């Protein structure tokens, strides 16, 4: 299906459908939509239609079926979509956010050794945080198998459930993204044992990026360029006015989910996330390697998953240096 691509290659489509999650790590989209940046860049010929998803699978289903043309997602769904479609379905055209992931534990725990025999939650078996935790544990000489056994018991469960089980003492820690990390700290007195940024070169690793349907990219490169322009402007806005952007994002969240984040959680979470146009390709590839190493992913060839040509053109036009897809 070619969804919104109802015109010939090159011509602007009547509509572009963009997906994102009502989630603080998707602040680029939240701010961009709230401030009308996408609409502005797309111009009058093309209308923006946004779709919000509750999680990665729904977003990928929508991309696969041609129901959206571009969407913000995390690294896992992107790798999935790439490998399941054998490199045919999507391209990553820009990065959006980095960081904002922590291992939060009960106050008593201060060293990795103390995690022995403890239960640690991750958002989902085999997702980036799950892989990161497992890899980190092997580095520290602790064993954890994919079935929940070993020195440390890894309990994959939804983040909301983590909030609850951490409070009731069912788990001893969690490797989770924002805003859940901040909530564990602020609400349940959790302590940060690991800031995942510390594990990566330049303290940078991808948490959100923008993917586009390959077909759409082929047919409407200009429209994608306009999307990327808006995307870059949104990130620039966030960088230049973090406090204001945080409020904008929170207002958008309120609109979408009916519930805004508490100010202290919002501030702390926003501070821990870096918004960047760089998809930090190296972290994606390394993460995939780690996943393979801990036995959660078959060897996957990520070569060609990035198409940063448009991004680099946009950056060049703004006089910024190009970004590598390696």
């Amino acid at each position, binding site marked *: *299906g070619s*969804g919104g691509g109802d015109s010939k290659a090159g011509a602007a489509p009547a509509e572009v*459908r963009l997906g994102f999650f*009502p989630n603080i790590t998707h602040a680029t989209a939240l701010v961009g939509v709230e401030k009308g940046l996408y609409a502005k860049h797309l111009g009058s010929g093309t209308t923006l239609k*946004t*779709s*919000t*998803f*509750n999680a990665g699978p*729904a977003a990928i*289903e*929508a991309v*696969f*079926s*041609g*129901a*959206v043309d571009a969407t913000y997602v995390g690294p896992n769904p992107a790798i999935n979509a790439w490998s399941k479609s054998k490199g045919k379905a999507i391209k990553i055209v820009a990065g959006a956010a980095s960081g904002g992931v922590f291992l939060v534990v009960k106050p008593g725990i201060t060293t990795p050794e103390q995690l022995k025999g403890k239960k640690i939650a991750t958002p989902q078996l085999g997702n980036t945080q799950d892989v990161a935790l497992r890899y980190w544990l092997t580095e520290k000489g602790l064993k954890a198998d994919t079935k929940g056994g070993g020195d440390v018991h890894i309990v994959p469960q*939804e*983040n*909301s*459930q983590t*909030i*609850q089980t951490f*409070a*009731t003492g069912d788990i001893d820690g969690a490797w989770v993204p924002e805003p859940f990390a901040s*909530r564990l700290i602020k*609400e*349940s007195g959790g302590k940060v044992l690991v800031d995942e940024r510390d594990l990566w070169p330049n303290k940078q690793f991808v948490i959100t990026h923008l993917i586009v349907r390959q077909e759409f990219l082929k047919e409407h490169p200009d429209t994608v360029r306009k999307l990327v322009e808006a995307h870059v402007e949104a990130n620039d806005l966030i960088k230049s006015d973090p406090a204001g952007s945080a409020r904008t994002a929170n207002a958008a969240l309120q*609109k*979408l*989910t*009916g*519930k805004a984040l508490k100010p202290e959680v919002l501030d702390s979470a926003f501070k821990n996330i870096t918004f960047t146009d760089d998809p930090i390709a190296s972290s994606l590839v390394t993460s995939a390697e780690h996943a393979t190493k801990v036995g959660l992913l078959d060897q996957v060839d990520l070569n060609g998953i990035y198409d940063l040509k448009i991004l680099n053109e946009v950056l060049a036009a703004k006089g910024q240096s190009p970004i590598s897809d390696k």
Partner: protein
Amino acid sequence: MAADTHARQIAGLDALELAPARRAGLLTRAWAGTWPVALAVALVLAAWELVVLAGWWPEYVFAGPLTTLTELGHRLGEAEFYQALTVTLRRAVVGFALAIAVGLVVGALVSRIRPLRRAVGSLITGLQTMPSIAWFPLAILLFGLSESAILFVVVLGAAPSVANGLIAGVDYTPPILLRAGHMLGFRRLTLYRHVILPASLPSFLAGLKQGWAFAWRSLMAGELLVIIANRPSLGEQLHFARELADSPGLLATMIVILVIGILVDRLFGLADNALRRRWGLHQVTA
């Protein structure tokens, strides 16, 4: 006379079971209908408050009645709540209506055509056990990100119940009535319309009730499929309340869902009472 009077013999529960319903005054009846509900609500609230006061869990994990009701009151004061309610109810009604239509046709065909029944009869229950999320990819493939995708999931959830209710009713139609209908010259469609359908009505109604429950649950899941901007829905609210581990929000949404479920049950109850009155079943158990 020392003999026991019957009034005493059938006292208590049995009197209740067998005595005919005497029409009491309107006020008395209203009161009889209200106090048990009021009492039940009061008991639940009290127990809930007690649990919270016991302090087993922090309030942000398990909100107390006060917090929850405040949250609910807050929501009731906002236009968004009513928008969400309208959107969800509209979807539920449309989806359910479609499911009834589909279920009726499928149930009617399957119940009377033997090879078809052999072929796909069991499939109906099979489909019923299929969780909604399994249909999501197909729904999106077929309908894209549209209302239709939601309705598709709702129909797939509810239609099997409706069909199964009808089939059960048909199977348990008293043979003597079928024979009577046959002798009156009714065949196939007319037999269906004049004999089988009315005779199956009680069972069909039960199927509808179950179908509504399936439809509603499927809807709650399905509303996450397509989150349409500026069109809030109950399913979405439920999900986000949970996603954000927002205990008062979750409990408030649960109350709303419960209340809707109860109201719908009352509607079914009215239909059911009318039916039983017609069939002369109310006299004994009323």
